């Protein structure tokens, strides 16, 4: 049988927001682009993003600017963000949103007819462009339709709509191929038929999203198996700061089948209040010192803020996600949780039923149909759920090029650095757009200097052998049960609250599962066989889990999405350190690397007293790197 081969200039792995934006950019520069999606086109996890896309357009409050957005992002990430990524993101996101409008997106409007913007945790001003609570769907659909537009243009010019940009749906990439130290293409298989495919492409953009499926309770779909993280590691790239995982404070906790499914932060943005089983609005107890001057410490002021945001401090329900998740975790642990191990989130007392249905339609729908709860009348039960990985592929901020692998690019959730130790809600959708585009541009620039890089037969053979292997094994382990075991380990030992001894135990257990996973055997044929698919996903998740556990063990402090019971405080010395994971073919190695310091002009955007909370006196005294 002959191997199916395709030649493209750029291969984009992942058809979520970042992948599609990269593909549009590369195609508009005249390159031939292939887009790979693991599921059907348009089903990517981006559709689950509800709240909105943060961009300082200043449509609702004209005091907003990129500087304010930059400050909020750095603060949210506890200053561990790569400053340049946060800067590019804050500066470029308004243009990316407006651009979507020229492609047909229909955001909700202000009275003046501009794009409306809503409040969100950690953002000083109303900043999130949104469409009800289905903003991610709007982004995906808009870019999907933009790609159709480009295809129609190609069709008019060449007679073949798929001549310049083609979507390969339900295809899994198992290897990124390299020749002479540079990317040469990728290898994978059609999920439908199990048949193998070779893509020859000198530039590959990884935009595969997150790793949530490594954990037991997660808002991520089955696709969030860290494929891109693992592909990049195996191709020789680095992962940065994989210890930082965002547990979204509000996931559904009941019924068990929907445990983990997201309850959008907009519920709190629209006035939703968190209470424990004593009816106490507990968030006032959990305002950390660094946020004392921005958040209200009493109910009266918090309530007034919804009417008058200039003269009141924000309600503590809108603290950054890590703070709220930890607070809920503490309440439940102290026995003040609900029957099903969550806390109450109530918006029914704040807004009339009609307005709730209008502003939070899919939340109403979700609770009504899946949990039998009418959120216009009763409170929801919510608890933390693994939502987003801040860590990811180490990239050059301006080009999204993966450090150490020429021809490889990464954008979106799979890339690291942008969000530091904790991501603000709304920053991921704008992240996708800003760095998706930059990855596309990066690939275009790279190809100006680098031509085709043919794939060798040896590389093809090795990749093919890997795919065949699980079929040749007899009576080995079951991939479903190994996956469940891994999720148990990460949930119990690498979860919201971590300790050194448990992390070490996790590292050992993950190594053990990894060893056994080498024996995974698959029953049935190659044709659409989920057991076979999971065997590869499992391998990826194990690498990611190893990287997370080892990075978490190394970081002896608590910051953002990493909380150590044995090191509860934030330590300003640790802020200067990134953890870099690399793969030596056997195991993941983690080393410390200095965080690039902020240049003077960005440094000066902050009040020096604020910086003192995060930086060592020497850093503050130095006042920026140039």
């Amino acid at each position, binding site marked *: 049988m002959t191997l199916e081969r395709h030649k493209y200039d750029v291969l984009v792995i992942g058809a979520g927001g970042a992948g599609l934006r990269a593909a549009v950019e590369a195609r508009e520069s005249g390159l031939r682009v292939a887009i790979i999606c693991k599921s059907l086109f348009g*089903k990517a*996890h981006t559709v*689950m993003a509800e709240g909105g896309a943060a961009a300082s357009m200043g449509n609702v409050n004209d005091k907003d600017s990129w500087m304010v957005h930059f400050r909020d992002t750095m603060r949210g990430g506890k200053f561990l963000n790569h400053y340049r990524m946060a800067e590019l993101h804050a500066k470029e996101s308004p243009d990316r949103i407006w651009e979507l409008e020229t492609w047909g997106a229909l955001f909700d409007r202000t009275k003046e007819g501009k794009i409306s913007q809503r409040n969100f945790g950690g953002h000083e001003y109303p900043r999130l462009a949104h469409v009800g609570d289905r903003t991610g769907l709007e982004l995906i659909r808009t870019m999907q*339709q933009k790609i159709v537009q480009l295809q129609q243009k190609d069709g008019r010019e060449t007679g073949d709509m798929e001549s310049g940009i083609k979507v390969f749906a339900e295809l899994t990439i198992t290897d990124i191929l390299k020749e002479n130290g540079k990317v040469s293409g990728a290898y994978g298989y059609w999920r439908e038929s199990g048949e193998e495919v070779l893509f020859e492409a000198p530039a590959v953009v990884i935009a595969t999203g997150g790793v949530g499926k490594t954990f037991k309770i997660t808002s991520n*779909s089955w696709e969030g198996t860290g494929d891109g993280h693992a592909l990049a590691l195996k191709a020789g790239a680095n992962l940065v700061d994989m210890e930082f995982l965002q547990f979204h404070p509000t996931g559904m906790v009941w*019924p068990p089948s929907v445990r983990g499914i997201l309850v959008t932060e907009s519920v709190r943005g629209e006035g939703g209040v968190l209470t424990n089983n004593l009816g106490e609005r507990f968030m006032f107890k959990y305002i950390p010192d660094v946020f004392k001057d921005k958040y209200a410490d009493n109910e009266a002021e918090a309530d007034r803020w919804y009417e008058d945001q200039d003269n009141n401090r924000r309600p503590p329900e809108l603290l950054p996600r890590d703070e709220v998740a930890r607070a809920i975790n503490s309440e439940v642990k102290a026995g003040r949780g609900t029957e099903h191990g969550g806390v109450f989130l109530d918006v029914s007392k704040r807004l009339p039923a009609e307005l709730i249905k209008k502003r939070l339609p899919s939340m109403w729908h979700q609770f009504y149909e899946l949990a039998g709860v009418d959120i216009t009348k009763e409170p929801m039960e919510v608890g933390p759920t693994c939502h987003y990985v801040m860590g990811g592929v180490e990239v050059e901020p301006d080009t999204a090029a993966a450090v150490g692998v020429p021809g490889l690019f990464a954008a979106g959730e799979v890339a690291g650095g942008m969000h530091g130790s904790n991501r603000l809600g709304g920053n991921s959708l704008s992240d996708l757009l800003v760095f998706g585009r930059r990855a596309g541009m990066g690939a275009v620039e790279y190809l100006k200097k680098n031509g085709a890089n043919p794939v060798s037969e040896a590389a093809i053979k090795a990749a093919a052998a890997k795919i065949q292997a699980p079929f040749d094994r007899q009576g080995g382990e079951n991939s479903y049960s190994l996956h469940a075991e891994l999720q148990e380990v990460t949930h119990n030992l690498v979860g919201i609250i971590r300790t050194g001894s448990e992390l070490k135990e996790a590292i050992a257990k993950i190594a053990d599962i990894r060893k056994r996973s080498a024996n995974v055997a698959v029953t049935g044929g190659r044709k659409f066989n989920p057991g076979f698919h999971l065997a590869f996903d499992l391998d990826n998740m194990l690498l990611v889990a190893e990287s997370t556990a080892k990075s978490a063990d190394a970081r002896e402090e608590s910051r953002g999405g990493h909380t150590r019971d044995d090191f509860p405080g934030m330590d300003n010395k640790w802020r200067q350190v990134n953890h870099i994971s690399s793969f030596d073919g056997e195991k993941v190695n983690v080393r410390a690397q200095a965080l690039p310091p902020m240049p003077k002009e960005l440094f000066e955007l902050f009040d020096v007293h604020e910086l003192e909370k995060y930086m060592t006196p020497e850093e503050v005294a130095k006042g920026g790197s140039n």
Partner: protein
Amino acid sequence: MARNIKLRIWRGDSTDGGLKDVVVEANEGEVVLDVIHRVQATQMGDLAVRWNCKAGKCGSCSMEINGKPRLACMTQVASFGEEETITVTPLRAFPIIKDLVTDVSFNYKKAMEVPAYEHPANLAPGEARMEQIDVERSQEFRKCIECFLCQDVCHVVRDHEENKKSFAGPRFFIRIAELDMHPLDTLKNRKKTAQEEHGLGMCNITKCCTEVCPEHIKITDNAIIPMKERVADIKYDPIRWLGTKIRKREGL
């Protein structure tokens, strides 16, 4: 409070297939997709099923449950009787691939045939001003999660394979309506092509698309019928037709 339930799952591929009976455990609050997953993990490791978000937002787990096109993730097991056998089959309007998975490429082909949005040439990014009341109609259609249940249930193609060539289906009628009602779209002749190329006239408004839509989009009342009326304006209404000729507003 787990109990055992009876499922009949269609298994097979394009050559052959049939309904297989299984008994599987179901817990309180579970949906049909949960029990299918349990069957997959414990009894049929290679049972093919599409799914993604498990929250009714991505539209992947479309199948037919007791003969009705539905999302498996939004169908509660408790909505069936204690003793009832739940029959699960793949979508019956599209070619079968394997088990519960069908080839839905028909829909993606149709998506590529609808002319894209055209932004006014003189309107730079950030300059657009649209009022909420002007975008609301199109926003309703943009809620579509592309589960293709409407395409599956529509008898025009479900019962007549030969119509697939000339009929875009409800999902793409709402796309055309969305663009025709988009306050800024400048492309002319959407109504004419809706009728002449996308087969709007084939629809006999029997409303099954609206009945199965998990997003509760009023496909028939808010998109298809308004489009039929708009088509009537330019094609079947002599007075309007004369008016557009005189005032030179053809196609808008």
